[in-house]
């Protein structure tokens, strides 16, 4: 197991470095230099050169990258052009909001997705199965931003049950969590269903039934344990995705999380903030996927052997 963990970490690390390099190059070759963005139009051309020199923008790109990485390792991602504050501080401020939203959304996804998947598999090819599967396919097909608007209109404006935007109490997170969770619930339901159906074909399930065990016992305590392995991995990956990926949901519901600051940085062409937040999000997802892999290996010894 230890060998497997080390191997998996050794794979993740170069990817992280490559990701940051690609990101750095892409964001730093943009035409239109940051000084103009920072100072707006009214700045003398001579001054631009002075600032460029001072900010180290005239150095070769790999030197700039090297400096960036060294600083990033110390937790310094530079300063936001627009907000004139440390990028790392801005990210740390935004992250708790994203964590909260991710947890709520994950809970929605699990409480809907797993039972829906189990029911669909047990009642395979019935109306219940079709209804659940259509519902979950709808979750995957739904444009998140539009679903968000629709819910705001329906539940916040028309019915007045919930607030439209904001982040002041758990009530504010209900709509965003449903919007975000539905999507993940769809994936989880489909995965649970297909895995359960696969497992139910095994001989040991037939043996369990032949012993005269009730269908519920067979499904829950014999089949489900094995069927859930890939689902658990998927869940871990989704949490990583939710932690980093609630870009649309956060912008619509006005939650100042990571996704929101990324979109804002994009809009104001605030390069250091964009770079810092995208890098942070990607790192979370890479690490999350690594944890998912390790979790899988931990739960299923067969993986560790190869």
């Amino acid at each position, binding site marked *: 197991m230890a060998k497997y963990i080390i191997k998996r970490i050794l794979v993740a690390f170069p990817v992280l470095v490559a990701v940051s390099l690609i990101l750095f190059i892409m964001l730093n070759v943009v035409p239109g230099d940051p000084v103009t963005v920072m100072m707006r139009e009214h700045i003398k051309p001579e001054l631009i050169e002075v600032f460029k020199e001072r900010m180290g923008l005239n150095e070769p790109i790999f030197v700039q990258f090297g400096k960036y990485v060294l600083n990033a390792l110390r937790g310094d991602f530079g300063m936001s052009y627009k907000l004139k504050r440390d990028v790392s501080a801005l990210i740390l401020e935004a992250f708790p909001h994203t964590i909260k939203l991710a947890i709520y959304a994950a809970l929605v996804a699990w409480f809907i997705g797993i039972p829906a998947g189990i029911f669909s598999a047990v009642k395979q090819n019935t109306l219940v199965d079709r209804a659940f599967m259509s519902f979950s396919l709808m979750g995957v097909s739904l444009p998140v931003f539009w679903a968000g608007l629709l819910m705001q*209109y329906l539940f916040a404006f028309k019915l007045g049950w919930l607030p439209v935007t904001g982040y002041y109490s758990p009530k504010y997170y209900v709509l965003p969590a449903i919007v975000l969770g539905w999507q993940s619930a769809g994936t989880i339901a489909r995965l649970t269903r297909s895995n359960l159906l696969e497992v139910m074909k095994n001989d040991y399930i037939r043996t369990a039934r032949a012993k005269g065990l009730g269908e519920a016992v067979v499904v829950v305590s014999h089949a489900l344990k094995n069927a859930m392995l890939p689902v658990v991995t998927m869940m871990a990956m989704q949490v990583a995705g939710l932690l*980093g990926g609630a*870009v649309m949901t956060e912008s619509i519901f006005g939650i100042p999380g990571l996704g929101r600051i990324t979109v804002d940085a994009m809009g104001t062409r605030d390069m250091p903030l964009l770079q810092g937040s995208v890098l942070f999000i990607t790192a979370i997802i890479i690490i999350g996927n690594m944890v998912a892999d390790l979790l899988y290996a931990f739960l299923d010894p067969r993986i560790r052997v190869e």
Partner: protein
Amino acid sequence: MQNSDILTLNNQSLPPDLGLPPAEDIDAELLDNETMWDRIKIMLRKNKLAAASFVVIVLMCLAAAFAPFLTPYEPNKTSLKDRLAPPSREHILGCDELGRDHFTRMLYGTRVSVMIGLLPTSVAMIIGTVLGLMAGFYGGKIDFVIMRLADVVLAFPSLLLAMVVSYTLKGGIISIFLALAAVKWARTARVIRAQTLSMKEKEFVEAARSLGVKKSTIMFRHILPNCLPNLIVLLTLNIPESILDEASLSFLGIGAQPPSTSWGLMVFRCKPFLFEYPWLAIAPGVAILIFVLAFNFLGDGVRDALDPYLKD
């Protein structure tokens, strides 16, 4: 058909709850000389939802192609007296904040979605296929470089990577094209590489090699056709994803730029009027949902139908 009769009979003669899955209709009809396309045809006949989805997709593509003939209005012609007009006989979905006919703009928006669904996806898949074939066939350093690059691309959340690419290229439809193509090749490459690896060991490739057939011919004439089922399945996954990504990017204001139209952009532009004129923002979203859902239902059916080919 004898074949299928025996299968059904066997299935009926067994006690019902032995845990055996019911013989699926599609498999029961599988004959030896059946092609992939036959299986898809059978699936379309059996799976009503997939068939209906197919019809919806064809209709929407036709609507995109013949948009000018389906509406008397121009998509960009403003008319201040019709500003935010509610749905009426003349304007089925009313008019937007500049008095442009909303339905007309949605029809033209279909073009963007169809194009985005097909063009960058196809480009990305062609690139991915060639790279995947090369990685699987040559192995060694080529394989290592291509696959590590794919790993890096797949490590990015695709929407964020697309955002960064559009940031670099300053937005617009072209940058969405490039952004989506840059993101989507990696998955194709990975799948095709795996398929190539297993095909490389097959006798027919060995035979071609011993006859001295050129490497490129082996790759494209002998191995590629065997990747077709995988490619079709990937296509059914990639198209709806690309359509959704375009809509999201346009909604964030980094995709299609006004005055050109796109469903995502229309939702974005009509968002401020959500509470007074809800139909404006809701209608384009419904279009996105129907289009993407149709692709997903069809894709689901196709995946089921091609299942035996994929296990190869």
